[in-house]
């Protein structure tokens, strides 16, 4: 009896807890990433960056607005559980209840795509940290939407350039059966069109699969001269391990999904010799000094590794880029302005971002391009002795 009453009271207290009323004179950012659920390996580093930046801003007392005065910045960090409906609800809340000026959401392409209509209807700038090109195209319907990761199309451009340079004509392609693998596979197929290179074998595997030997055996039998894999670890590592175990010797080309320490650790020695295109963060140290991103990358890596104790992560970089561009845009927008106006102004400023050297590349946004990156944001990398080495064309 009394148990029930206590339970009821607790539930009631939970539901009725009043919301904090935000003060008007501050900048507010809504930040949603996949902290739990299948995409947590993306969302956790992203969240860590948001929390670290929030702490730093608190220490500094905020950022300087256009009137020369300092204003605090509040970042609302939420977990979308890797679920579409949760992401949508959180974004609704951030827009309507927390009155944020910018929404940064979310880690995966489906969750990001799902909230595009909410941002558009609510007239709030949205920055996604997911890669699918569909998030920012067609640009006419994506007036309010930006994203920071390189589009998969840049990835395949690098892969195909390498294949052409090596004069391969027959390749095999394996991809993980989710939105990421599917998008990446389509990107490769589109770039391969009219290149004279033929995909002689194509198959997929599940992210949770532990044995890809059947697919690899067929790759071996297909006579392909190179294998392109579109996946993220652990599946990507398992493919690589079993690729070596089967004694395959053709070049193994991955995509940016393997740009993390986990891939190398998990594949152990098998990762050596793997080639893949990626943003420059992984090879920051070995970039030529003239590279415009070298300094910002080295600084970010040092900051992130010190702050979290974890190895560098490109996903963390996507969050960092989104937040830094937002903060830069805020500096030209008065937080005291009416919300709708401040949001619109922030969006305009985001679209004006020019030559901003971030971790993902040098961003130059325009009304026609809400990613602002081109192929130069990526380089081809080769794994040697368990670490990544910048691999310029002259070494091919």
């Amino acid at each position, binding site marked *: 009896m009394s148990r029930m009453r206590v339970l009821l009271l607790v539930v009631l207290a939970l539901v009725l807890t009043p919301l904090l009323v935000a003060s008007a004179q501050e900048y507010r950012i809504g930040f949603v990433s996949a902290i739990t659920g299948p995409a*947590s390996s993306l969302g956790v580093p992203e969240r860590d960056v948001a929390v670290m930046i929030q702490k730093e801003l608190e220490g500094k007392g905020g950022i300087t607005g256009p009137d020369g005065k300092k204003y605090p910045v509040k970042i609302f960090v939420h977990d979308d559980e890797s679920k579409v409906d949760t992401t949508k609800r959180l974004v609704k809340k951030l827009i309507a209840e927390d009155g944020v000026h910018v929404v940064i959401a979310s880690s995966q392409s489906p969750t990001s795509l799902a909230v595009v209509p909410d941002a558009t209807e609510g007239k709030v700038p949205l920055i996604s940290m997911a890669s699918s090109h569909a998030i920012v195209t067609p640009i006419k319907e994506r007036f309010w939407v930006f994203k920071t990761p390189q589009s998969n199309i840049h990835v395949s451009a690098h892969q195909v350039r390498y294949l052409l340079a090596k004069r391969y004509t027959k390749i095999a392609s394996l991809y993980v059966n989710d939105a990421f693998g599917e998008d990446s596979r389509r990107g490769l197929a589109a770039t391969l069109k009219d290149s004279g290179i033929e995909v002689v074998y194509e198959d997929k595997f599940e992210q949770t699969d532990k044995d890809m030997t059947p697919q690899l055996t067929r790759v071996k039998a297909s006579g392909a001269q190179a294998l392109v894999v579109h996946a993220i670890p652990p599946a990507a590592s398992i493919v690589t391990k079993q690729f070596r175990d089967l004694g395959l010797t053709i070049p193994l080309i991955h995509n940016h999904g393997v740009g993390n320490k986990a891939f190398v650790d998990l594949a152990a020695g098998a990762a050596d010799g793997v080639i893949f295109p990626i943003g420059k963060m992984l090879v920051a140290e070995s970039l030529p000094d003239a590279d415009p991103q070298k300094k910002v990358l080295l600084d970010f890596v040092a900051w992130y590794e010190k702050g979290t104790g974890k190895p560098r992560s490109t996903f963390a970089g996507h969050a960092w880029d989104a937040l830094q561009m937002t903060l830069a845009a805020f500096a030209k927008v008065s937080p005291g302005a009416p919300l709708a106006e401040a949001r619109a102004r922030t969006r305009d400023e985001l679209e004006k971002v020019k030559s901003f050297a971030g971790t993902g590349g040098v961003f130059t946004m325009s009304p026609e391009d809400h990613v602002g990156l081109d192929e130069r944001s990526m380089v081809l990398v080769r794994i040697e002795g368990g670490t990544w080495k910048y691999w310029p064309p002259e070494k091919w």
Partner: protein
Amino acid sequence: MTIYNVTGIINFAQGEFAMLGAMVLVSLGSLDLPRPLAVALAVAAVTCVGGLLERVTIHPARRASPVTLIIITIGVDISVRGIALLVWGTDPYPLPPFTPGPPLRLGGAIITRQGVWILGTTAVTLAFLYLFFEHTYAGKTLRACAINPLSARLSGIRPDRMSLCAFALSAGLGAVAGIVIAPLTLVSYDMGLHLGLRGFIAAIMGGLVNPAGAVVGALLLAVLENLTGGLFRAAYKEAVAFLVLFLILFFRPQGLFGRNRRGGL
């Protein structure tokens, strides 16, 4: 992974014990202990966790219906996974094989060295379970509880203590499974759900009451998945595995090796 079913409850948290076992071993790896000692410690730790969880969650609700108990194990599963996420983070960890080296060739087939370990461990576990259930007093009482808790109680067995034993035992076995499999895959905080699901299917295929049946079920499942993986598009292998489970249930509702209990009717 079948012991749980002896208590008459489907335990959704079973896979998490496998994850915990492997994770604890990864963490012990930094201490530079000899491998066998580390493995023993990890298994012991998880066994204790299993027992503790039974006392805290199942025991207070022991009189509730099976559905209630299943929901409790789901709650445990969710929390344990959350704690693992907090403690170990999202990055998967590699665990070196017990005996490194190139895969072995047996005729035309290729088997990894870790695969041999898995087979060996399974055989040993099976032998252990057989001896335990058939030749020890504790094992016999455990079986008695599964078959008929009421009459077991009447003959002086305490089912609630048996439930504790069963939980701890299966947690330990789960940990062993996780540790043996981990070098082949990787250790990540969310490996449990998938492993647990597979474990059930194997157990169901084999018939719930019989550990040997579960092993045969597991082997069958693995062979089947890989055969379909080789014959058709690899993506369909999971679907085929479940379809076969379906068919087995259709034609032999008591599992492949379960005794037909309908008897009288």
